[in-house]
């Protein structure tokens, strides 16, 4: 409803606009969501017999995951570049950077697909061990978040974005910034997931 203030412009005393505050609170809840799973990981690892997690952890593919890490970090920088381009009124560059972000995300999903099917092919499922259970749950939830983010990114890349750019460019920049914050968070989760699951 247009009568609601501070959708794009900042409220003077808090210095924030509504969506930015909203997305940070949402991210706070997401930290607790992944935190719950991390807490479960630590608890289960310490409660497991000696060497159990090491044995199962060794079955994971480190090179693929390292490549995935680089993909996500790249997508993060292209995401912030697309926002910066929008702020500099360079709409074509915005689309280019956003496009690369989307491609990186799709790439991540492809690699994950191969990883998962590779495991299933060898008869390794979530039920195979506690480690595999928490591995599939943590990365699976992360994949769901990538897909969710991807839907929004694609929407912001389509004609809807063109229309918004013409009618209300500040709103589009605001939407991109907020989506970017979510996207960086997804990258952040992976930055912790990667060493904990694949390397420890």
């Amino acid at each position, binding site marked *: 409803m247009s009568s609601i203030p501070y959708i794009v412009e*900042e409220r003077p005393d*808090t*210095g*924030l606009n509504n969506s*930015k*505050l909203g997305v*940070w*609170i949402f991210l*706070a809840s997401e*930290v*607790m969501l992944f*935190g*719950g799973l*991390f*807490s479960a990981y*630590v*608890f289960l690892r*310490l*409660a497991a017999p000696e060497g159990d997690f090491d044995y199962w952890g060794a079955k994971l593919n*480190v090179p693929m995951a*390292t490549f995935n*890490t*680089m993909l996500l*970090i*790249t997508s*993060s*920088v292209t*995401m*912030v*570049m697309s926002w*910066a381009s929008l*702020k*500099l009124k360079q709409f074509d560059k915005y689309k280019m950077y956003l496009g690369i972000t989307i491609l990186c995300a799709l790439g991540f999903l492809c690699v994950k697909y191969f990883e998962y099917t590779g495991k299933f092919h060898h008869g390794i499922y979530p039920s195979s061990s506690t480690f595999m259970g928490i591995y599939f749950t943590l990365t699976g939830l992360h994949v769901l978040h990538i897909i969710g983010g991807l839907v929004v990114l694609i929407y912001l890349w389509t004609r809807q974005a063109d229309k918004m750019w013409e009618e209300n460019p500040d709103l589009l920049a605001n939407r991109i*910034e907020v989506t*970017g*914050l979510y996207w*960086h*968070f997804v*990258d*952040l989760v992976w*930055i*912790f997931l*990667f*060493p*904990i699951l694949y*390397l*420890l």
Partner: protein
Amino acid sequence: MSNNSDHSIEHHIQTYIRVFIALGVLTVITVAVSYLEVSFIEAFFLAITIASIKGSLVLGFFMHLISERAAIIWILVATTVAFIILMFIPLISLTDSTGMY
């Protein structure tokens, strides 16, 4: 972000590139360090420290936290406290038990 001037955005772009390179280097370091022969606790702290450095770079520069308003910082402080509580106390329950169960 309250500063919309072109100059400052271009300055920011330089920072983004630098952070990107730093993240790449740190990723390589993360993998390299995992080949060291250390105890689990040492490996854990090493991994978490490097990941935290990478995370701080993403939070500070890509998510603009370094110049963000106090309200947001406080929300994150509260979240961090809640997160730490969530991580550590169930952990302690494993070590501090009567051993009956």
